[in-house]
């Protein structure tokens, strides 16, 4: 591994994949840059949240609304999904076969959907307690940040389904490989953002 040329940051396909390894260079590099831009997007929304955290305008605040138990389950689900995606990446790189690749991707998808389910449940119970976004600046900022992450996870899920569809139609071809590698970066990136949300929004809010 160490004597193999690294074409881009992160997990490389390796020269065993021939031309696909070269094709990944510009594509994956470009995706890193996209993630950088996306990170700026999240940081701006984070900044909005941080400046609005006290702007509850007499409405419910973090202590009334956040449920740490649910959020912990969500966190574990998402972290587990990142691990399973890592297994999918390894199955791709070391050519463990299409079945194993699809298997790990499917497990990731299930975990992602479960995460979204718990999150939606969270939002519903917040709504029931009067925590709607139009109630205050604080709630507006919360419902900008956390659902933005959720929408990203949903987009990633749709992408995952499409990739599985592409594998079914074309097998593991160049574009599928590049797709899986990019989605892997995206998925891990969302994990990191979630860690920031978990600590910056939920833990700090309940501290």
């Amino acid at each position, binding site marked *: 591994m160490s004597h193999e040329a690294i074409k881009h940051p992160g997990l490389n396909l390796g020269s065993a994949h021939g031309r696909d390894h070269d094709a990944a*260079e*510009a594509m994956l*590099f*470009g995706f890193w*840059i*996209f993630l*950088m*831009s*996306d990170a*700026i*997007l999240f940081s*701006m*929304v984070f*900044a*909005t949240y941080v*400046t*609005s955290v006290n*702007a*509850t*305008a007499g*409405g419910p605040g973090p202590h009334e609304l956040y449920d740490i138990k649910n959020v912990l389950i969500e966190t574990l689900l998402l972290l587990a999904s990142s691990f399973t995606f890592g297994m999918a990446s390894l199955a791709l790189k070391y050519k463990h076969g299409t079945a194993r690749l699809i298997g790990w991707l499917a497990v990731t998808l299930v975990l992602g959907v479960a995460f979204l389910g718990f999150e939606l449940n969270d939002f519903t119970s917040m709504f029931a307690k009067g925590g709607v*976004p*139009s*109630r*205050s*600046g*604080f*709630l*507006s*900022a919360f*419902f*900008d940040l956390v659902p933005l992450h959720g929408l990203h996870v949903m987009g990633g899920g*749709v*992408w995952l389904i*499409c990739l599985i*569809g*592409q594998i079914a*139609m*074309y097998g593991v*071809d160049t*574009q599928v490989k590049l*797709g899986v590698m990019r989605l892997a970066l995206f998925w891990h990136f969302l994990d990191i953002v979630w860690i920031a949300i978990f600590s910056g929004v939920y833990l700090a809010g309940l501290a």
Partner: protein
Amino acid sequence: MNLADIFQHPLGRLSLESLPFWQMLHDPTKANVINGVIGTGAALMVVIGAIVTIALVTKYRKWGVLWCEWLTSPDHKKIGIMYVVLAFVMLARALIEAALMRAQQAFGLDGGFLSPDHFAQLFSTHGTIMIFFVVVPFLTGVINYVMPLQIGARDVSFPILNSISLGLTAAGAALVMISLCIGKFSTGGWFGYPPYTEANFSPGVGPDYWIWSLTLASLASTLSGLNFAVTIYKQRAPGMKMMYLSLFTWTALCAAIMMIFAMPPLTVATAQLALDRYLGFHYFTNELGGNMMNFANLFWLFGHPEVYILVLPSFGVYSEVISTFSTKALFGYRSMVWATMAIATLSFTVWLHHFFTMGQNANINAVFGIASMLIGIPTGVKIYDWMWTLFRGRVRFTVPMIYSIGFIFLFVLGGISGILLANPTIDYQVHNTVFLVAHFHNVAIPGALFGLLAGYHFWFPKAFGFRLNEHWGKVSALCWIFGFMLAFFPLYALGLMGLPRRSVAYTEPSYVPLEIAAFLGAILLTAALATLVVQLWISIKHRDENRVFAGDPWDGRSLEWSVSAPPPEYNFAVIPVVTGRDAFTLAKEAGKAYPLLDTYADIEMPKNSAMGPVLGTIAFALAFGLVWHVWWMVILFFVCVVVAMIVHGFARDTTRIVPAQQVKQEHRRWLDAVAAAKAVSREDERKSANQGLAEQALPEVPA
């Protein structure tokens, strides 16, 4: 937006009252008639322009050509040209609006002829268009055309994404254009500060038009920036180190990086304002914990880097132009590169100077004031570098050089007024007056626009194979330069005399003479655009006398001049190997500029894709539905976006092969033309003797 709502109001907020002549017909007071006639005239110009274009394309049976060779083309050169065409169309509108505003102010003592609301729409669209739909498409187009050629690449890294960026930009521009015909644009200025642009103060569609056109433009710019940066990092010809890049490519890289970082804050700001307006959130409202300062910070966190996104590519053009037409290598290349990088970095540290007066304490203002002044240092380095490049050069006063010299003088003035404004104590005195308007036009017009026009004249022969008319080019350049001076120098004085910006009228008689002078300047600027059109017309008429197929009309220095004009779609028959800066000059000096090739290889190029025009159209329809609350349109076209992207993901077989035989034929044909062409000296480069082959006689004067 429940289901019943969708059925009860299938057209959302659309009604006959949205038409520009409705008010005038129903309440024909004198003021309403004047504003109605102007508004209807403008709408008619849009409608007639569209109909004439469609009719002409149909008459000459060009729909197939338009679709197959232009709209769906992934070729960076064609995409670049389409960007520039878009920029010129939008420039015409925004310039007419500017002239109308100056006319209003010239007659604005105790009244004038425009209603305050109409005037506010004019300055809002003027600013929005000039920044997002003139200068940005113009510079994106020039970068698109020139940069891949300069680095010895066949295309950008992501050609289809490039076409999508163009589609989204055009959709945003179309949205601003249709706001002339249906409904009204925002009256909140180009930066649309809430709470004024919130639903309770601006309930109409204006701010929504503004929000969605900006959102489309900023998404497009983010994607363009990403594409350019990856291209410059990953597609350079072998041997082309970063320090061998042309300066234009360096500025393109800096602008691209800034687009990647600076556009997301704008996207967030417009999205949050949209949530406030559509779903009753409270980001920037007056009540329930909203905080408009968040908008100011987000917007200018984008807005200030944006200023340098606009100006840096032009700095790159000036560097190329001044070096080429001084027949010298650029003086202080390294310092130029570092200065560009320094400006790009510093530009992220100064945004607060856009609102010195909005409540921070003096220490914070001082920090940002000092940071703002620091930008003067790298900019000064650049000015000196350009002057030292001119020094002892064999300078030719071509049209791009006239723009460049005009730029050096005028931009220094604009820079100095900027240093004044960077001082918070002075800013307190003149902020919100037309002094500020004079300042930013003084940097934007000579800084950004002149550079892009210089680039247009400089690279036009490369793109179309013939030179532009010199005489009309000079007339136009002088109209731009003196028109600018006449239109904006009076505003410095008026600003110091206390005239607030965006005033529809005033009561102070002593403003009148200066206002009339500025109005005359606006007329001269309109004439400048008209002469550009005349120049283009005449140049096309006389194109056969001015062909430069051999490709090097100006004794150019970088790789774009080393291929035919226009270049083949794959740019280079064989990717060149680069051994130093100014690669083409090196090759010419070594007598290896036009090498014969023994073997040719197949070239893989991307196939055409409908994704750009399709996504552009969908985005336009989606945004239009959002503006008018036509919810079925919103849902339908949102689904279309998702489906289009998924279908695109399933596409395979996206490249095609240009056979070696065809490459060989085209290359040989060009080499034969080069061999047949007579090399011209620099004295003759503006005569029809110039076939695009430069005489290599005098050794270069050392820098």
